[in-house]
């Protein structure tokens, strides 16, 4: 890439970053105003306004986090993280948004998993972004049951943590095509989402900053997007 191109890329990153930062405030205002209005009115729409604004705010916030981590990877500190607790917190954060779409979120953490190496805030942000994108997508692909599983299991490559649905439209092909079309097409995950599916790419960029990958995965015959985390060797030495 030429110097001129690199400069333009950096400038557009900077501009995106400041636009995204700016967008946080109006979303925050909408979310808090809607929350305040709920005590004055009984209209359930206020609850939806709040969770929609909250979700938009989270997307912008996680986008900023991904961008910052990729621009300054030296700022990422890796620590011992409990996958179960990250999945639980993700479920809590997405709960209200999921209700807006009539999607139910199940936590499936069967078995004991030791700590993994990651940055907790970044891992959680990635899973929340991914979850929000799948919640939004699920009703439009009409998979029958509007249910997502936040699940983890052990594989020979490490601890797999991700979000799963009972639909074949989440596939390796969809994800691969999506990555190729991201930032070119208006609808890169055309088989999965009616939107730009930004949450999936935000999740992917946050994970990449931690040297992790977002990939296709299966869990109990469900199809999902997940990442493979390495168990913390440091704590394995503790009896």
């Amino acid at each position, binding site marked *: 890439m030429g110097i001129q191109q690199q400069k333009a890329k950096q400038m557009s990153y900077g501009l995106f970053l400041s636009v995204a930062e700016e967008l*946080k*405030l109006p979303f*925050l*205002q909408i*979310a*808090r*105003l809607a*929350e*305040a209005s709920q*005590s004055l009115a009984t209209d359930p729409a206020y609850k939806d306004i709040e969770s929609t604004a*909250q979700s938009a*705010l*989270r997307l912008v*916030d996680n986008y900023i*986090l991904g961008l*910052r981590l990729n621009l300054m990877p030296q700022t990422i500190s890796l620590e011992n993280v409990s996958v179960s607790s990250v999945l639980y917190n993700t479920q809590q954060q997405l709960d209200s948004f999921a209700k807006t779409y009539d999607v139910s979120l199940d936590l499936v953490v069967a078995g004991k998993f030791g700590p993994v190496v990651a940055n907790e*805030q970044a891992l959680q942000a990635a899973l929340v972004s991914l979850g929000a994108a799948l919640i939004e997508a699920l009703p439009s692909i009409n998979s029958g049951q509007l249910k997502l599983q936040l699940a983890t299991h052990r594989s020979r490559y490490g601890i797999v943590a991700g979000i799963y649905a009972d639909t074949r439209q989440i596939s390796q092909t969809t994800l691969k095509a999506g990555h190729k079309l991201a930032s070119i097409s208006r609808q890169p995950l055309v088989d999965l989402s009616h939107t730009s599916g930004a949450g999936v790419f935000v999740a992917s960029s946050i994970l990449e900053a931690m040297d992790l990958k977002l990939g296709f995965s299966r869990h109990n015959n469900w199809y999902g997007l997940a990442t493979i985390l390495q168990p913390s060797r440091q704590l394995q030495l503790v009896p």
Partner: protein
Amino acid sequence: MKILLVEPDRLLAKVYRQALESKGHHLVSASTAQEGIAKVDEFKPDLIILEIQLVEHSGVEFMHELRSYEDWLDIPVIINSIVPPAEFNHSFKILKHELKVSDYLYKPDCSLKTLLAKVSNFDPVLK
């Protein structure tokens, strides 16, 4: 309880004011660090809710100024900010230990309900 809210955004200040006043708190607000310090002197708050990202002088400067007066050393301060705590790593340690900040709330994650619950921890009537 007497609360000083240092919040630069007018709309958010209005929402926080309504929520806090609905719980019987007496609220005074300021939009800059200088105005905040003047209000501390005038109003003698029991609690300060502070945004770090202010115009001209930051919330950290406000804290340094506040804690430089012996009479104000024990006023509890809750940070309620749009700046993510992760971007505040180093300074937050200083804020907590040297400047005695009681709590750091991240606005996008902090609903009005959570804010009110945190504030009630400082209410001598409810303690």
